[in-house]
């Protein structure tokens, strides 16, 4: 564990989170036309970029700040698997259903 060897790793994660957030805010303000007008998987490229950046930030918080990366494999899996399986499933069902109701309203 890098923990005992100082605090540099904390500041490294801090800068990563800060830069990713800054990129999100800048993209959110300028909203490049190319990214808005092209879509993939039912949403614009810009939204996909936002979601990917969010997951990167979440991974750094959970793995580094919450030290999940240092826990044993069994604990890692029992925490991550329910989230990785259930959340996309619920999301798929509800967003699909919402889109359908929009169509028939």
């Amino acid at each position, binding site marked *: 564990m890098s923990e005992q060897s100082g605090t540099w790793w904390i500041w490294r*994660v801090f800068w990563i989170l800060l830069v990713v957030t800054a990129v*999100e805010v800048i993209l959110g*303000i300028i909203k490049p036309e190319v990214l808005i007008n092209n879509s993939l998987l039912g949403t614009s490229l810009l939204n996909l970029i936002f979601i990917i950046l969010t997951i990167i930030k*979440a991974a750094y*918080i959970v793995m580094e700040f*919450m030290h999940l990366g240092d826990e*044993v494999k069994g604990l890692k899996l029992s*925490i991550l698997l329910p989230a990785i399986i259930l959340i996309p499933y619920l*999301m798929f069902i509800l*967003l699909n259903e919402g889109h359908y109701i929009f169509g028939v309203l």
Partner: protein
Amino acid sequence: MADNTINQNKAWSGGDIPFKASYGKLMMWFFLVSDALTFSGFLCAYGFMRFKYSNVWPVADEVFTHFPFLKGEYPMLFVALMTFILIMSSVTMVLAVNEGHKNNKNKVILWLGLTILGGFTFLGSQAWEWGHFIHGDKGGIELPNHDIIHVVDSDAHFYSIYDMVGVDSYSENININIDDIKLALSTNDVFGIRLSDKTILRGEKAINQLNDAKVVLGANLIRNEYGHQLFYFITGFHGFHVFSGVILLIIIFINVIKGVYEKRGHYEMVEKVGLYWHFVDLVWVFVFTFFYLV
């Protein structure tokens, strides 16, 4: 650490440490898993609403343009600041946990204190934002079919009803009714209304749409100038987590000062509250994306 050779056949019946994590830490993790699923349920419900009402949903950077003490439009800046405050308080929390591992009492006090300060600043910012929206930012109009529509200026940008009728939004006894809006529309043709299908009407056509419509200023438990949304519900639930996090931080802050953990020989309690605090930051990362960016 338990010796595996001795406890090999007694795992889970005492003596062993499942997952090599202490009881408290393990239970905190499982609580956080269930809380994460609760938040996911709420955010997915929000996604459902957005897809269901995708034509009437307000555009985030037309809505979040406020900044305390400043007039004018500053899209995204205030929420970027709030995000920065929460990330920063997460960093001071890790630093406190880190010093706890070294049994460095005074440094733990310093970093925990700064984390509490960050938590309060975030809560204050959120209270200000709620206050601003509950009071009313730009105002909306509710049509008889319950669609919430908005006023636009000559560039078809979302415009403030207060500015349109020339009333300061923070003056006393504001009373704007639909006739004031009709009057402004008829006397000044730069203004228009934007219907829920995004078409923009000006002049007579706009006025004809507004029969039996109501002006909605701010938000209460029944009406909201932005229409359907779970903004208060989800940011409120998150804010409640921040608040309980601050309370937990204050309790362990007092214990650290009193030397409770120093006597105990370890600062694991700081670590456990730290897990909760990082989780609060984690949830905000998602709330930030889905309410303010996407």
